[in-house]
């Protein structure tokens, strides 16, 4: 056989991942997805696991500069890359207005979906500052909420879009 035996080794690999600005080396098994790694190995419990097959959006995090489903990325895939979770995004302060708007509009009840909602909305605020309500609904349609009926979430995102537009115009 010409097969190198270690090609099928399922054991842990050394990876270097920058999480919320902190670069660290970790050992992870190939089968571990990014959110299990963040929650179990790093204790970052802000990213939630709902469906674990890419449907609900509760696990949304940033990989390099774009939002992804944390349950549909392996931790080994993030080797050499940057990850940002809701903890990092909150600390940066760049979505403080969005978080305040969520509170004002009661855009959360149990809070399970909220970190994913905020991650998804943060990319919308950056990429589509002129988004209409319909575009907000489309953009956020990949994130499930079982409490709010979505209206309050969309209201909150739309309000921040509007207030940032006013801010940008001044």
């Amino acid at each position, binding site marked *: 056989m010409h097969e190198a035996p270690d090609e099928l080794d399922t054991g842990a690999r050394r990876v270097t991942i920058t999480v919320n600005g902190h670069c660290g080396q970790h050992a992870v098994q*190939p089968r571990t997805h990014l959110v299990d790694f963040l929650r179990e190995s790093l204790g970052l419990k802000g990213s939630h696991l709902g469906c674990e097959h890419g449907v609900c959006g509760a696990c949304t995090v940033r990989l390099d500069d774009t*939002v992804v489903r944390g349950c549909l990325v392996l931790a080994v895939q993030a080797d050499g890359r940057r990850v940002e979770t809701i903890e990092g995004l909150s600390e940066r302060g760049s979505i403080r207005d969005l978080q305040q708007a969520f509170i004002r509009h009661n855009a959360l009840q149990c809070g399970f979906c909220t970190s994913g909602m905020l991650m998804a909305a943060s990319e919308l605020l950056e990429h589509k500052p002129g988004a209409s309500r319909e575009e907000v609904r489309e*953009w956020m*349609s990949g994130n499930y909420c079982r409490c709010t009926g979505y209206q309050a979430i969309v209201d909150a995102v739309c309000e921040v879009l509007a207030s940032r537009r006013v801010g940008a115009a001044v």
Partner: protein
Amino acid sequence: MKAPAFSYARPRQLAEVLALLDRHRDEARLLAGGQTLLATLNMRLSEPALLIDLQGVAALRGLQLSGNTLRIGAMVTHSEIEASPEVARHAPLLAMAAPHIAHRAIRNLGTFCGSIAYGDPAAEWPACLLALDGVVVARSVAGERRIAAKDFYTGLYTTTLEPNEMIVACELPLATSGQRYVFDELSRRHGDYAVVGLAAGAQLQNGVLGKVRLAWLGTGSMPQRSLATEQVLDGQRLSQAVLAQALQTLRAELQIEGDLTHSPAAKQHLVGVMLKRALHTLTQQPALQA
């Protein structure tokens, strides 16, 4: 659920990828965007021994225009296509279809070629590839093979790819002046699986339809062209009589299967509605100024 145990490799050269794939064949799975693969692993619908991550292979990245061809590398994501001015100009059908694919977070990682390889009958890209007469560029240790879109799918999630072969790119002819396109899809919620969808193209000269292409998604076990209906429309002006004949031909021609939410009869009705709308749009919209 959690994925079963598997091994992982991240080669930097295409030759290494092909060698690994040749050694492990069906035991290996290629990991491009992983937006279908990871879900099937988590649900344990798939238990490969080895994942070969393609992210380190520079040769598989990027969109390229050369001559009258758009080449979409294996690692090009849905979001890259959605944001590309070259795609909007030279392959407008793709720009129209991209927003229908899942949701932003998934479009940021999922790839065009991954969708082509997986061959979900309800997916957008396989129908676009068919409508545009695209070419799948496949590689193995034995060399390169170019497969016409119409020959690529053989059944449900089944393609002509060999176990040691991978898609390195897809190539699409650039849109020519006077070309028109429509992409339409019905789904229960934005980003959900299509109930039915249509990728269509045509030319219109003095009101006469030509080069009509109708490729359907969500209608059966694989994406399908409706060639007889295209022939009914080619060389005709759109009229009530032509439309009626086209609809009758379409109903006879399409092999429609139901799904969890829609019966074949419901889909049969919906494809007719969709064809009517598409022909209306094709004959009303301004032609491409290429």
